């Protein structure tokens, strides 16, 4: 699919449905219309002629990403643009990847053209002079409409478009239907129900827990806060940040989980290691609050529990609404110091917005899609997962994706925030001490770090 009809089609749709909030009606799957006339462009747009010229020049791009098998999507790109060669490198997952990226940027040597950057790290790369290329001039002007509002607000911040969304992680609850049934529990709809259910479950199952609270998983705890309406971070793109982790709302979220841990109702095992996987495989945890990338991941590690799991919404604080949050999700961003800005931006755009490529991500690598088009695609939605007893899990998470709260911002130094979590709030969970005190310690450490680094803390 070439860039031009896409641009035009989206432009036409966006003009027609400008104020529509029913986004799932606005997105339409189906063939592209071939309209021959040249698209009118906003003044900052890079002219199509320049783009065509760049895509027809021999270029080699370096792409750092840890998505497995991404070669398949990149191949679609290089087949379309044979003059562009792409070197895909996995320099590590998560923290090591960012460390390498930062050191490469600092030394000016060896940085890639395109890099995978998760939502929460974007701000850390747009700090000061900024290391990411503003993709607004390179992207189709109506790109915004391809995404749910909350997704767009993650990448379009402080006056620029900093990455093309690739996948997201709306939060849901996976649970063992058989274990809950055995204990006579219904999947809890509110947190109050959840606490009661955890208690009941525990009395009936001395070797097992309803849920685990991981003491080193800042991302998950932040997602819980996000769901409860907490907005602990702001960053104005310049020098001012707000660090408000210890608000009353946040405290109540943290107290909830802390109480479960201190009373022994919830376990406090470190997650994402052998022990934890074995726990999942052996029925130690009856539920798993996790993001949309969780279902497939679970299949790989808990194979022998196939057919016993189901997916549903997270419990709610307010029974009258259905709200969720996000944990994880990546974009592909272009580095400012790339010498091939046009080609790089087209790579980022293509693999994440081209329908075939995006569907591949969703159906083959099981990345939960960011684009509305894929979120509503029948081939994606209608998949029945045997592992989940035939449930259409994608459909469930697509529904959840609509309920993710908007306006969540990130600090430009999340590396520090995440690591410090493990020493403060996470440690409280691990040691079964006062979680609210741990939260305050986390807040204080982050605020201090911000001040030490020269930020104005609001």
């Amino acid at each position: 699919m070439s860039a031009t009809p896409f641009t035009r089609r989206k432009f036409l749709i966006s003009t027609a449905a400008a104020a529509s909030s029913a986004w799932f009606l606005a997105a339409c799957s189906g063939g592209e219309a071939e309209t021959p006339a040249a698209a009118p462009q906003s003044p900052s747009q890079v002219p199509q002629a320049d783009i065509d010229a760049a895509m027809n020049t021999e270029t080699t791009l370096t792409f750092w990403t840890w998505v497995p098998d991404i070669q398949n999507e990149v191949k679609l790109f290089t087949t379309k643009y044979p003059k562009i060669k792409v070197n895909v490198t996995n320099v590590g997952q998560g923290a090591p990847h960012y460390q390498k990226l930062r050191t490469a940027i600092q030394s000016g040597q060896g940085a890639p053209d395109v890099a995978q950057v998760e939502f929460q790290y974007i701000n850390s790369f747009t700090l000061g002079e900024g290391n990411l290329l503003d993709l607004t001039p390179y992207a189709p002007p109506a790109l915004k409409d391809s995404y749910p509002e909350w997704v767009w607000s993650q990448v379009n911040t402080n006056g620029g478009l900093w990455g093309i969304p690739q996948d997201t992680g709306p939060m849901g609850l996976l649970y063992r239907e058989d274990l809950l049934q055995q204990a006579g529990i219904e999947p809890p709809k509110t947190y109050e129900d959840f606490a009661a259910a955890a208690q009941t479950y525990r009395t009936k199952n001395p070797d097992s827990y309803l849920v685990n609270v991981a003491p080193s998983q800042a991302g998950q705890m932040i997602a819980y806060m996000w769901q409860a309406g907490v907005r602990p971070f702001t960053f104005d793109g310049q020098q001012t940040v707000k660090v408000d982790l210890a608000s009353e709302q946040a405290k109540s979220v943290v107290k909830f989980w802390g109480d479960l841990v201190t009373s022994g109702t919830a376990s406090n095992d470190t997650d994402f290691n052998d022990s934890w996987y074995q726990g999942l495989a052996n029925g130690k945890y009856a539920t798993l609050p996790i993001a949309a990338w969780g279902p497939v991941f679970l299949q790989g590690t808990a194979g022998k529990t196939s057919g016993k799991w189901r997916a549903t919404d997270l419990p709610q604080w307010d029974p009258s609404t259905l709200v969720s949050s996000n944990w994880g999700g990546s974009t592909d961003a272009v580095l400012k110091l790339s010498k091939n800005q046009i080609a790089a931006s087209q790579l980022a755009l293509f693999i994440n917005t081209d329908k075939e490529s995006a569907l591949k991500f969703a159906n083959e690598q099981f990345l939960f899609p960011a684009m509305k088009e894929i979120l509503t695609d029948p081939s994606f939605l209608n998949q029945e997962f045997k592992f989940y007893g035939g449930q259409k899990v994608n459909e469930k998470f697509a529904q959840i994706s609509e309920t993710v709260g908007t306006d969540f911002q990130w600090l430009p130094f999340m590396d520090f925030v995440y690591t410090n979590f493990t020493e403060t709030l996470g440690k409280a969970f691990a040691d079964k001490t006062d979680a609210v005190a741990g939260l305050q310690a986390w807040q204080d450490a982050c605020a201090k770090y911000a001040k030490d680094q020269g930020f104005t803390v609001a």
Partner: protein
Amino acid sequence: MTDAIPGKHRPAVVAAEGFPVLVERDRDQEAQAERRRPRKPTSWLLTVFMLICVGYFLFPLFWLVVASTKSNDDLFSSFGLWFADFNLVENIQTVLTFQDGVFIRWAVNSVIYAVVSAVGASFLATAAGYGFAKYQFPGSVALFSITLGAIMIPLAALTVPTYLLFAEAGLTDTYWAIILPSLATPFGVFLMRVYAADAVDDALIEAGRVDGVGELRIFFTIALRLLLPGSVTVLLFTLVATWNNYFLPLIMLNSADKFPLTVGLALWQSAAAGGGGAQALFSTVITGSLLAIIPLVIAFLFLQRYWQSGLATGGVKT
């Protein structure tokens, strides 16, 4: 460390300095000593106790072997120290073909880094050690002290600056980024200095000079042969250190095709542990680990025979 040990005995060669010499007394002396030694009773208590200790050292490796024969699912559901379904062949196949056989690439890299660094470091240390030992040239004390002091420098002080300097020179993410830093072994120079002081008798050097042989030729033709056992020691320890090095390649390298086995395995391990599109790679990591340690273990076995061959310390009577 250089104070002479008074009177009580005259230890052979450089063992007085107490460092790992790959030299044993020559065969004749050895045999004589054996014959003169009275038969000692075998203590079964000691033997059994030692075998228990040996068990402690070997049992994690045993676990590794057992775990390598299991599939991913079995790993999590069967008893750790005994076998389940035998899956070793498939595991090995997966390791060797996963990600287009990058494991083999990593193994080749490990070999290249380790061998080149070991040979290079050994040679440089031998030359420098000999130079320090046999020549009291101006500045030798100062330079040697600096070398000794360097042994105590924590690596953490050096890696980031080294990385930044390498980046300036455009050398990061290259083979040189690993090999060059590994070529400087202050410890090796220290070893060789002590070794050379006794292994190469000054009389030999003088004889060479009298014959009109140039200093460097003396080194290459006479001394080197005598220094060989010491050089092999330095080679062995550098080999192991470079093969097992995790920190340096972690910092310096970005492209997976240049990683050594250590970094590669750690990468797979963290991929297995991570979320979001992650794959369950445990059986691959475990089997890969087993394959990764086999070369060094074999090298140890091979070199052990070399130790036991009872090398002479040259033509000088002790």
